[in-house]
């Protein structure tokens, strides 16, 4: 295999050697590469919420609203990050069954999964999840409804800021709305392998 490495790198070097000069790295302007109206926005949560709604995500600001949403959908069995559950459990009626350990043998039992967000991007209505911040990957991915719990200070304005803020983490995921496909005749269907509902729950502190 190191033989292949040498072969490939050797060919690359030989390919580039005759070039009289190498193309320079251009300076590009962040301001021009960010969607119009983003940087002027005063309230990042308001912009984030607007852009999240535009991709059929659901921004919420109170736990009772979340409970109402889950009840309306008939989703009463779910998973929650054990670090978050103490804060939320008081608002969940007894009819709910919420596990704080995800059993991958019973993947389809969980109708919703509540995990912590590692950040959010107002420009695109995107939630940021990370490996260290997400108690289990499957809990955020497999259930029909995913709820990301977010704090206001976690929201950045735009992509360049979000890239600069990428945590040192082996797996950071930007989630922009519910999963979808348009493979069948270009018709948009939500809820493919990932969640069909994506909720951002803003909590203070």
């Amino acid at each position, binding site marked *: 295999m190191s033989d292949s490495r040498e072969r*490939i790198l050797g*060919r690359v070097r030989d390919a580039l050697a005759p070039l009289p000069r190498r193309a320079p790295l251009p300076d590009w302007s962040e301001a021009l*590469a960010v969607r119009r109206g983003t940087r002027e926005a005063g309230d990042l949560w308001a912009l984030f919420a607007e852009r999240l709604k535009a991709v059929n995500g659901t921004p919420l600001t109170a736990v009772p609203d979340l409970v109402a949403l889950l009840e309306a959908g008939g989703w009463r069995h779910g998973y929650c990050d054990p670090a978050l559950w103490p804060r939320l459990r008081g608002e969940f009626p007894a009819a709910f069954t919420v596990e704080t350990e995800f059993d991958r043998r019973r993947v389809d039992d969980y109708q919703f999964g509540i995990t912590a967000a590692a950040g959010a991007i107002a420009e695109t209505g995107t939630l940021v999840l990370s490996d260290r911040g997400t108690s*289990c990957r499957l809990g955020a991915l497999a259930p029909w409804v995913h709820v990301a719990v977010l704090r206001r200070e976690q929201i950045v304005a735009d992509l360049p800021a979000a*890239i600069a803020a990428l945590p040192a983490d082996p797996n950071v995921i930007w989630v922009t709305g519910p999963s979808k496909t348009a493979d069948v005749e270009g018709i948009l269907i939500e809820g493919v392998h990932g969640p069909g509902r994506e909720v951002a729950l803003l909590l203070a502190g």
Partner: protein
Amino acid sequence: MARQSIDAFIAALPAEKRAAVYAGTKTTHEKRAQLLLDHFVDSDRLRRWAGEIKQHVLENLDTYLPQVEAKLQANGAQVHWAATADEACAAVHQIMVAHGATRMVKAKTMVSEEIGLAPYLEQRGMEALETDLGEFIIQIDRDHPSHIVRPVIHKNRAEIARSFEREGLGAYNDDPETITRRARQHLRPKYLAAGVGLTGANFVSAESGRLVVVTNEGNSRFSLAAPRCHIALVGIEKLVPRDHDLALFLNLLARSATAQNLTVYTEFISGPRAPGQPDGPEEMHVIFVDNGRSAILAGDCREILRCIRCGACLNVCPVYRQVSGHAYRSVYPGPLGAVLSPLLAGEQFAEMADLPKASSLCGACQEVCPVNIPIPDLLLRLRDRGKREHAPAAAAGTPPMGAWALLAAQPAIWKTALAAGRILNHLPVKLIPVPALRAWVARRTLPAWRGGEFRKWMRQRRRS
């Protein structure tokens, strides 16, 4: 004159396939144009910058490749190098064997199609299951994708429903939502049973070693949540210099590909799972694939390696939209494929030398390319090469230009021809002595020949 195979293909293509491809591409390319206009002050400048960044990377790959390898290794990933398609397949196979895995779930990656990975593994008793809905349908149909982003753009819901029924996924039902739910149910246990998850990479940052994988369905996330081993297949050209540059590329990519601002999932992967994380791979392998790319880097069409596989060129190409992807006889169709496929063919270039001819050189592709690849110029270069190497596929249907040049470089002969051409006004079309002209008049009326009239008028005007 011998016939061009792509032209013959379209003559035989069923009308509903052509209509499906035409409609599918039209919506996406129109929405794409509107989005870029609405969201950015000057999206052309963004494309040019992105192109320059990619060109810089390509021309400095000798520095960036070792750099990214070191970063990946520092992050805990194992790095492999595959000079050929066979080596890449063998590397994947070896990793699976070493890991004790016989089942793989794969997210969408064109490189895996290019190297023929699924058949290679299947021949060795392993399962390589496509998880992207479009690719899954292709797999169960034993078909080939006809678009790099919308693999089943050429199929309608009825065909897909029949395929699902045939595969035992339920009684015939062509409702797109039902089809999608069935795929979801069918694939869940497969993810959990698989030992290996395979992805590609849309970008690899040479600064941090992060792989960036973009999807809409969540299949790539699932392939990285359940299985214990991750293999990433990455073409050597997929690098970007800095994390910072990703902000520019990501704002261009989804808009160009599917007219979305961002795909639903943008994953930044820099190593196996974090300690304490119950789900995800314990091992991560990155296989850098050459398979002809270094040869392209050495030639005069290296700009094609900037490509970020968005498919915008396919969606706007008037030829692709008429003929559809299978006409191109290769993994990469459309304007991208017309340049890349003959080049990747290496010594078999001549067999693909007709692809660069299947274009009216309209330039729409370059105009939409998020990395500003000068595709028409590259097509011209490949035509020149096809001629110099005497590739019959390139020559088919093209009138002999040597004779034309003789005529056009000699004014006296030219003027004679202008006068003689008057015979075309009187000759029955079947008797026109020039094959190219006969081909023309088979479908179009020739205008009246007026050779010499303007010149005479001009001379008279000068005298007065």
